[in-house]
C-alpha cells in the first residue's frame, strides 16, 4: 500500500490565524479549506489506529493459518 502525504495545519485564532491565512493562500491560491476540530482529529486518529490494528491482526491470522495447514515434516521411520 502506498499512501499520499497530508499536510496538517494547527490554527489558533489568538496565536497564528492571520499568519495561517496568508501562508495558506500563498501556497494554495485560495482561502477555502477543510477544518476539523481537535476532538474530531482525535477521533480520526483513533479510527486510523483501529484500522491499523485490524490490518495487523488480519496479517497475524493469515500467518497463523499458513503455518497451521503446513504439512508436517516427514520423520524417518525406525525399522
Amino acid at each position, binding site marked *: 500500500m502506498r*499512501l499520499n502525504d497530508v499536510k*496538517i495545519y*494547527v490554527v489558533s485564532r489568538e496565536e*497564528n490565524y492571520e499568519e495561517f491565512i496568508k501562508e495558506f493562500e500563498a501556497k494554495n491560491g485560495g482561502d477555502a479549506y477543510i477544518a476539523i476540530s481537535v476532538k474530531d482529529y482525535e477521533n480520526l486518529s483513533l479510527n486510523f*489506529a483501529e484500522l491499523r490494528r485490524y490490518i495487523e491482526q488480519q496479517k*497475524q491470522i493469515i500467518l497463523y493459518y499458513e503455518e497451521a495447514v503446513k504439512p*508436517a515434516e516427514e520423520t524417518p521411520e525406525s525399522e
Partner: protein
Amino acid sequence: MILVLLAGAGGAFMYVKKLQSDLETARANVAKMEIAVQTSEQSLKLERAETARLGELNNQLSSDLQKAEQYGDELRATLQKHNLTHLANKKPGLIEKRMQDATNKLWDDLESITTVPSGVQSTDSGTQDNNSN
C-alpha cells in the same frame, strides 16, 4: 485292533495338523494386530505432536493479536494525558509539528505493515503524490 490303532493315529495326526494350522492362523493374526497397534501408536504420536504444535501456534497468535492493540492503547493514553485543545490554542506551531510527524509516521507504518512479500503480486493503487502542502 490294528485298525482301531491306525484310526486313532490318523485322528491324532489330523488333530495335530488342525492345531498347527490354527496356530499359523493365530500367529498371522497376531502379526497383523501388532502392525495395527504400531500404526495406531504412530498415528497417536503424530496427533499429539500436531496438537502441541497447534497449541504453540495458538499461544503465539494470541500474543501477536495482543501486540496489535499496543498502538491504539498508547494513542488513547496520550490523548487522555494531554489536553490537545488547550495546547493547540496556546502552542499551535508545536502541536502542528507533532501532529504532522505522528501522521507521517502513521502513513509510514501503514505502508510498512501492508508491504507485499516478495513473490506476491502487488495491488498498490496509491500514487505517492506529494501534492500536499
